């Protein structure tokens, strides 16, 4: 029904949930976050269409992240890729480290990336503050570095699996560059991988990735829909960086004595947990720190062998296995 010509003209970007399900398609420079906003606790991946030329020619791919440090909002990972033969055109687009650009410049650059959809592709993953918190506060430690690397790897994999002929990979460093490089090289032995600090100012394709990530993060924060309802996104929470007094003040003023913060906040940041320690009810978990565990095991022992232990107070196996005890006082 639609004219094939028109279809080609359209700069189409597909939204894909992390389950790999294609959910919608968007046009123009807009970043459609509506699907993400239905459950902003869940990670979300935005995937552009793979330019035809990227399936035919060897490509370079850049990986960068935005929003690693802030105590609130998502961390966003981006990859962008284009044929090695288009390197000069890429340079001409005027990419630079997203941090040195104004918001308007970044928006304009994303638009030009989307306009160059005939040779630039990109994938962006939104790692929600809920996800980051639960990873870092999980039973088994999953560090931010690990989370970051896994996101980068999954985006690279996604680009390869969707058909782009990736040859060279440039990554802005996360932690120790050589270790990261070794890890990536082991996973992708056929790729030519460069992990280096400040990659976003050295390689235009990394700059492009960093712009994708940064613009998406800004959009997510601007349009964040608080499920908690009580807090509005227009409140001034500053830059989100722990050092920003506005951010600190916002956190201090928006703490709930039981729940702490809306899930827009990364509970795993010490800025957040320090405020909770002062202003909210204490919460004890089974797997709390060293001391608590020691206390816990002591109380477990005293459960089995209290002072003046009376074997007649020992209940049948069924009750012990079910966590049931006789109520002796009310």
């Amino acid at each position, binding site marked *: 029904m639609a004219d094939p010509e028109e279809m080609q003209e359209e700069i189409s970007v597909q939204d894909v949930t992390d389950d790999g399900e294609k959910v919608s398609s968007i046009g123009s420079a807009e970043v459609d976050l509506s699907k993400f906003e239905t*459950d902003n*606790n*869940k990670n979300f991946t935005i995937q552009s269409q793979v330019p035809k030329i990227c399936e035919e020619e060897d490509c370079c791919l850049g990986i960068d992240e935005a929003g690693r440090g802030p105590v609130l909002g998502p961390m966003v990972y981006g990859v962008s890729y284009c044929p090695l033969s288009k390197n000069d055109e890429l340079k001409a687009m005027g990419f630079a480290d997203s941090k040195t650009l104004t918001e308007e410049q970044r928006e304009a650059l994303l638009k030009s990336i989307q306009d160059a959809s005939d040779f630039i592709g990109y994938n962006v993953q939104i790692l929600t503050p*809920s996800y980051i*918190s*639960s990873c*870092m*506060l*999980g*039973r088994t430690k999953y560090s931010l570095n690990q989370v970051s690397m896994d996101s980068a790897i999954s985006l690279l994999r996604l680009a390869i699996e969707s058909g782009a002929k990736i040859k060279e990979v440039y990554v802005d460093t996360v932690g120790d560059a050589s270790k990261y490089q070794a890890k990536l090289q082991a996973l992708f032995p056929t790729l030519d991988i460069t992990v280096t600090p400040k990659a976003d100012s050295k390689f235009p394709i990394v700059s492009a990735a960093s712009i994708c990530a940064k613009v998406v993060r800004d959009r997510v924060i601007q349009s964040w829909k608080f*499920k*908690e*309802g*009580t807090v509005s996104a227009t409140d001034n929470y500053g830059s989100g960086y722990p050092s920003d007094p506005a951010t600190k003040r916002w956190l201090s003023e928006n703490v*709930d*004595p*039981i*729940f*702490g913060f*809306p*899930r827009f*906040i*990364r*509970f*795993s940041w010490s800025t*957040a947990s320090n405020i*909770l320690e002062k202003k909210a*009810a*204490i*919460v*004890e*978990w*089974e*797997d709390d720190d060293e001391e608590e565990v020691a206390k816990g095991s002591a109380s477990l022992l005293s459960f089995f062998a209290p002072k003046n232990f009376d074997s007649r107070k020992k209940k049948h196996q*069924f*009750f012990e*296995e*079910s*966590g*049931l005890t006789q109520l002796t006082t*009310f």
Partner: protein
Amino acid sequence: MHRISGPARLSGRIVRNYPVPVSAVINMSVHVTSNSAFSSAASVHLLPCTILSNGPAKVDVFFTSNTQEDEVGLVSAFRGRELRGQTVFIPDGYKGIVLQELNRPFTEDQDRNVRISAKFNEFTYWNLQTPPSSQDKVTSALQWANLSSVIHAPVSDDDQDNSPTSIEFSR
């Protein structure tokens, strides 16, 4: 809101203290009375952590609003930690109640009055990260409801006559 919220319900009428002859009471009783009508069942969650607080909490605002269901079950979070939940039904023939004591007497030997301030037929059981399963102690604890009724039902003449092999309870 179509449902009476927790705090409103809890600050209802004050229960009388029934006078009890002091000489007779060495062990006090706790009398159980009830609110008149319950418009709906209370929403009840058992969390895998101890929150050192008693009182109002914006459960709907912070918790229920963020609770989702996926293939495995319910997902939510508390204080940044992922929780996995499942609805636990109160065994047949039983009901969940919340007992509330409004005025606790100053002395130990006085009778006390508690009242049923809420009822529920199910609650949500939450685990830290791990989806709840039949391996959780709460599952076997609730088996006690049926098992105890078998153990403690009065012995009838039928029971006495039965041969050891007869199976009466086939569930």
